[in-house]
């Protein structure tokens, strides 16, 4: 199995390193033709506006949507989650380009600015009893889930930070920064 990591901008190398430790073949995806050799795709953290624009400029949106329709598993972390969401609030006033695949509403910069970035332990029952050590950096939040989207993890106050719909996975935090590989293994089993 080969995992693609969208490598337009952001923390793609961290995902790649973690996947390689798990013995996976990894391909960096910057152009549409690089999608053909992959079996699943991770969209990393970074700036969602930057990644979205580059996806438009290099014609990646429609080919990725097409692969999603063919049930290829896709995981978005932080900015990647925003790009997966069908609805984005607090986006740029003019709207921002996105894949719009998953029935969630994502709120950008939901916790505030960098000074409000934080670490927290998030219980994610589907990956084990131990709570997941989560790093939130200018993080988004899942305001709403719709359809058959399931909530996988919440903060203690109930706010949603991880969800899954079919073969789409979304986390508001950065599992690639915490050194815990359980969510990566979960994604590889999806």
């Amino acid at each position, binding site marked *: 199995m080969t995992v693609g990591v969208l490598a337009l901008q952001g923390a793609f190398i961290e995902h790649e390193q973690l996947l390689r430790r798990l013995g996976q073949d990894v391909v960096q995806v910057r152009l549409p033709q690089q999608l053909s050799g992959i079996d699943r795709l991770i969209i990393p953290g970074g*700036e969602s*506006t*930057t990644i979205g624009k580059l996806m438009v400029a290099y014609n990646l949106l429609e080919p990725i949507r097409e692969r999603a329709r063919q049930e290829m598993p896709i995981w978005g972390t932080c900015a990647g989650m925003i790009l997966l969401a069908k609805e984005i609030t607090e986006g740029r006033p003019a709207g921002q380009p996105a894949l719009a695949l998953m029935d969630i509403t994502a709120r950008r910069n939901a916790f505030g600015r960098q*000074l409000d970035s934080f*670490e927290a332990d998030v219980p994610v029952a589907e990956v084990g009893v131990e709570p997941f050590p989560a790093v939130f950096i200018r993080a988004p939040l899942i305001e709403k889930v719709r359809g058959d989207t399931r909530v996988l993890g919440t903060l203690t106050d109930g706010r949603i930070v991880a969800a899954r719909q079919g073969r789409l996975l979304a986390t508001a935090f950065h599992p690639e920064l915490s050194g815990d590989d359980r969510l990566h293994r979960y994604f590889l089993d999806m």
Partner: protein
Amino acid sequence: METSTWKTKAGLAQMLKGGVIMDVVTPEQARIAEEAGAVAVMALERVPADIRKHGGVARMSDPEMILGIIEAVTIPVMAKARIGHFVEAQVLEALGVDYIDESEVLTPADEDNHINKHKFKVPFVCGCRNLGEALRRISEGAAMIRTKGEAGTGNVVEAVRHARQLHADIRRIQSLDEDELFVVAKQLQAPYELVLQVRELGKLPVVNFAAGGIATPADAALMMQLGVEGVFVGSGIFKSGNPAQRAKAIVEATTHYQDPKIIAEVSQGLGEAMVGINISDIPEGELLASRGW
């Protein structure tokens, strides 16, 4: 739940990797930068080329201007404080900027001490010309490094020099016996623990961008191929003929830095680049990179 941890400070820089951070002096420029795909903007009163031209003491920007820029964009906003001016840094933290650049582009406020960056919740980026300087800044609490280059020149030669020097220093450490690292730490005037960490990682323990003189898409890709993790572009964008298009081209060249065909494509029809300055034409006392130590 713990805010402003080391992981969140160094982590924001990790999220900026592969991206372009652009100097802006107005909310309108900030919007152009965001629209072009910048991962962050650096709010300042004058771009380095103008600081160089007008001389005088260069200070932290007017808080009102910084707030205007924070208001204008959704991407992270950075701002510069003078070397050693910890009150300017306190002010910038109070304004809610996302990163502080303790920068040699401004006039230093302390000729012995840099800011003790551990005392702050907001993360800092600092300049370096070599490994020793980078590790001294990290030991003071910098969560991100940029090679200095020579700001405001549109001349990439110093950025190349500093990136090559940094990477040569790292390779040298990796080639040494571990018994020799104690002396190396002394020579580098850097903490032994950080030297050891660099040897194990084969890179700095924090993200490193290039800065100072990048003016074209090819300049940005050059720095990326030399091994930096992203670029700062200062005067190079808004001192050029067509800022919006040039900014977008530099963003695309930074992403596709290994693809000369794409770099060739995006480099077409950008109009005039900023007028460059030869480093040898700058009087020694006006070199910005020699500020900080």
